């Protein structure tokens, strides 16, 4: 393949799409995770948990819209192929996201007597969305195969992703809360860490088994060595999370963020691994990035938009995180204490 602008642009969009989806999974991951953990908290804690994600969730979800948007804009053929095949899980995810997004607001505005119902819908919606996303990832990786083995594989990811999100959510709460709730979040992190880790290992081993293409890419000689940093970084991240979550005094000393950071690192590594497995396909074994790309002119038009706006988006996103920096509690009760 010769390197020219026309063949490069689809790759650029593949990268933009991948990074948006990674941003989505990490960012919405923590707020979905907080939703999944909600039933395990007391009523007072629920309020704090929800407000710790209040200013962020909407922008977090917008990364999903961008990811799907890029799929649609840059790869219309893949867009239809992927979404028609994922019809039902997409609908489940959407209903989950709807219930969750609105419960958020309704729970503080409705009559007090109804709050329990909105809390329950918030948690249920978060779990639905997370599970459906896991299923979607699974069927995407198996090329939408409907054989029992492939379905079992998708099911496995569907059950795992919520634990990974819960881990992110717990990590977020450790950074954003204090005292009793923080201690609880550490306990939650400890509890989901192992199931998440084991499932990740399981999935990593199963993926090459369900896909010959993936198998060939990983288990051939010089590549395997070059790829070693990925599992090594994963193991290191896992160890760090495990270590900190078992030491209350380390968390108390202000290193709680390590748990969140290492979970994010796990996600990033998983993403890199996936990207490597799939490239140059956009739908594995069926459609390459170039086959799916839309007209060059249209790509250029949207590329200009991406090049101008994405940096701006990053800047004001950082600005927002700085505005709400620090513990969810510190400032609000600081004056009273």
């Amino acid at each position, binding site marked *: 393949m010769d390197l020219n602008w026309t063949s490069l642009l689809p790759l650029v969009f593949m990268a933009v799409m991948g990074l948006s989806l990674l941003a989505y999974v990490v960012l919405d991951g923590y707020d979905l995770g907080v939703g999944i953990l909600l039933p395990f908290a007391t009523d007072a804690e629920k309020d704090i948990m929800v*407000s710790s994600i209040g200013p962020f969730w909407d922008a977090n979800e917008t990364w999903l819209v961008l990811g799907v948007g890029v799929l649609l*804009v840059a790869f219309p053929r893949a867009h239809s192929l992927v979404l*028609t095949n994922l019809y039902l899980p997409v609908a489940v995810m959407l209903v989950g996201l709807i219930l969750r997004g609105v419960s958020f607001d309704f729970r503080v505005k*409705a009559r007090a007597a109804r709050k329990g119902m909105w809390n329950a819908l918030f948690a249920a919606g978060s779990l639905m969305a997370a599970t459906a996303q896991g299923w979607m990832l699974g069927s995407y990786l198996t090329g939408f195969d409907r054989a029992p083995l492939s379905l079992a594989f998708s099911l496995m990811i569907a059950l795992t992703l919520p634990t990974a999100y819960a881990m992110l959510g717990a990590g977020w709460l450790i950074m954003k809360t204090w005292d009793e709730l923080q201690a609880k979040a550490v306990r939650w992190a400890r509890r989901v860490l192992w199931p998440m880790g084991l499932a990740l290992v399981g999935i990593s081993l199963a993926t090459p088994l369900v896909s010959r293409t993936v198998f060939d890419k990983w288990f051939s000689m010089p590549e395997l060595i070059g790829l070693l940093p990925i599992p090594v970084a994963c193991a290191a991240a896992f160890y760090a999370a495990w270590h900190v979550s078992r030491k209350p005094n380390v968390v108390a000393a202000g290193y709680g963020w390590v748990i969140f950071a290492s979970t994010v690192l796990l996600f990033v590594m998983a993403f890199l691994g996936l990207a490597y497995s799939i490239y140059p396909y956009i739908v594995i074994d069926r459609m390459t990035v170039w086959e799916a790309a839309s007209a060059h002119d249209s790509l250029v038009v949207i590329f200009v938009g991406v090049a101008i706006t994405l940096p701006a988006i990053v800047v004001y996103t950082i600005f927002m995180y700085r*505005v709400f920096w620090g513990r*969810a509690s510190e400032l609000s009760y600081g004056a009273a204490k």
Partner: protein
Amino acid sequence: MDALVLSRIQFAANISFHILFPTINIALGWFLVYFRLRGNLARGHQDARYWEEAYYLWTKVFALSFALGVVSGITMSFQFGTNWPGFMEKAGNIAGPLLGYEVLTAFFLEATFLGIMLFGRSRVSDRVHLFASLMVAAGTTLSAFWILSLNSWMQTPVGYRIEDGVMYADSWLQIVFNPSFPYRLAHKLLASTITASFLIAGLSAYQYLTKANNGGSLKAMRTAITVAAVAVPLQIVAGDLHGLNTLEHQPAKIAALEGLWKTEKSAPLTLFGIPNEAERRTDYAIKLPGFASLILAHDWNAELKGLDQFEGRHPPVAPVFWSFRVMVGMGVLMLLASWWAFWTQWRGRAFQDRQPFSRMQLRVLAGMTFSGWIATLAGWYVTEIGRQPFIVYGVLRTADMVADHPPGLVLITLVSYLAVYAFLLAAYVLVLMYMSRHPAMPTPDAPQSPKPGMAIGGPA
């Protein structure tokens, strides 16, 4: 029923639900900026508190509507792929970038600054907070710009070429500013202004009726009535112009909405009647001779094309015909209501702090709280059903675009969406009424702010 019909119902249900909330928010965002500015200007004066109260309540309504708008919008962005794959394959080169620009320029802007607007009041300076509110309002308006550009292009496609059945862009300038776009944008922004005005006036009236009013109620109500009294007549003019533009580009739609079965000179205006598609005539019609020609061509004797000219290429007549009458009827009602209220308010202007309206007026306004929704939906049904059987007018047929899912599958998702939407719509209306009756109800401690209870819109 086949997958096509079900997919159409599902798409219509989803977008009808989605549009309800942006329609409110596009204008409400600007109302909020105005309340803030007035509050700032009145600093140190009693009025400052009143404007603050209005800001406080309506920010909560904005936040709630925004949440509903966002989640239903996310649903929309998946619908194209899940149900209308053909559309993106054939028109993706043009629809894609327009949708892409909406996400990049509008969605991130509004979503990010919304966080600061709702939760950051006590964390940033007053200036930055005002700036954030402005960005949110600008973002919602920008959203409308892009999506309406796409929708208008689908109605009046220009600036493209077709190769092997796929559409390619020739001129982006022509595509974005296609012939029906300026009319649709103006008409839609006005619709949104009117919808938000009647919502504000209606819920404030409801506050008076239930004795839940505070200082903010009157401020908000006066503003809303003034805006409505100006915007409704403008909307009627804009609607007329929109109709003329449609006559030029989509005469079949106009023939359907007027119930014109036959091409004729000096065509009559049908005020009322029951379209009879089988016999191709309108039963029990009440007609004003020559008036349709007068309104649409500004000439008594002009010839108007009837549906007989568009055999097999015109939309179903009854839904378009009825929707149009509902929209125009609502417009007339709104004109009467807003001018009546404005007249009362004008006479009572000397007593700024006294509520001038009669109980009767309050009841009428409260009854019309959601009238904007009805007119807006009716208008969209005219527009969208009126362009059938095409998805991109004259170029792509809706029936060729649909995904061939088993009908049972589409039925399942359709029923689930409908159930969720019905539930949420009821919850939304009830919660709006509840919030109006408890305008000062603080949201629970918002730990993101220094003072408990200062979450949204400052102290109650």
